[in-house]
């Protein structure tokens, strides 16, 4: 029971961490090597793509998607997609995809004469699944070793999440102490009074409940 509970807890927190890691904005220092536009037929990875440009026909299974090809500060490649998130999830309300593509193309540079840029994005790059992080904004940046800005948005959102989680947890604990534990005890007292036959079973529920206790 204890092992089972531990596994569930670990899976739950891993999912929550993965959710935030995917959805919250991150900033990379990169050098844009090229920008392109290619047609994508969405398959089983369709959940990792955002929405078509706001106002266009979104019913087709395939469409053209902008891409921004970059090289990171550590020399490894990173390819971003550039899609509207529109009014949907995640709530970036990004409508300026074409403008962003223009800005990215404007920052194009070669390895010999690099122009570094700070790119804000969400999402993951996974080669086995052909998924790409979605670029949100791009600005020229001093160099590959320059400091990145403090991620205030992430700090605020994660702090709020921690506060809400703690508040719910505390209330649940208080509720259980005040309502559920006495009820269980009452049931068990009743059993005790019922006689010795039940005696051996006494506390079984309590012990089971105890496995849920922190």
């Amino acid at each position, binding site marked *: 029971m204890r092992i089972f509970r531990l596994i569930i807890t670990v899976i739950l927190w891993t999912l929550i961490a993965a959710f935030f890691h995917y959805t919250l904005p991150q900033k990379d220092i990169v050098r844009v090597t090229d920008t392109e536009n290619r047609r994508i037929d969405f398959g089983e990875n369709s959940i990792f793509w955002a929405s078509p440009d706001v106002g266009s026909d979104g019913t087709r299974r395939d469409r053209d998607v902008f891409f921004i090809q970059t090289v990171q500060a550590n020399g490894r490649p990173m390819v971003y997609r550039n899609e509207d998130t*529109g009014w*949907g999830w995640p709530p970036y309300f990004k409508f300026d995809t074409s403008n962003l593509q223009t800005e990215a193309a404007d920052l194009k540079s070669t390895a010999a004469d690099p122009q570094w840029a700070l790119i804000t994005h969400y999402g993951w790059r996974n080669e086995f699944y052909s998924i790409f992080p979605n670029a949100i904004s791009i600005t020229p940046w001093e160099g590959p070793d320059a400091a990145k800005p403090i991620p205030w948005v992430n700090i605020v959102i994660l702090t709020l999440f921690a506060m809400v989680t703690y508040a719910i947890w505390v209330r649940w604990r208080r509720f259980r102490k005040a309502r559920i534990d006495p009820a269980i005890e009452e049931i068990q007292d009743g059993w005790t009074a019922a006689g010795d036959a039940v005696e051996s079973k006494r506390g079984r529920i309590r012990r089971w409940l105890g496995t849920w206790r922190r």
Partner: protein
Amino acid sequence: MIALARLVVVGFVVLSIVYICLSLYSRAVRRRKLAAEWEEEQPPIPRDTFIRVGLEEYDGSLRRKLILGVYVVPTVLIGVIIYLVNFA
């Protein structure tokens, strides 16, 4: 436009649920406080009248209208995000 309509409708429903719950909770808290005040001060009016007058006063108060912030804050937040992401 369908996506926007969906956001507005779902957002309105969710925020309305929050608004109603918060209003009921706030009124209950006010009622409890008025009862405690009556117990403490023992004014020369019946308890029910004291609470009723107090709640009527509360209904017209700024404190109650502040709960409308449930609708205002997310709307402003979305406006700010749209500006920062697309136009800043």
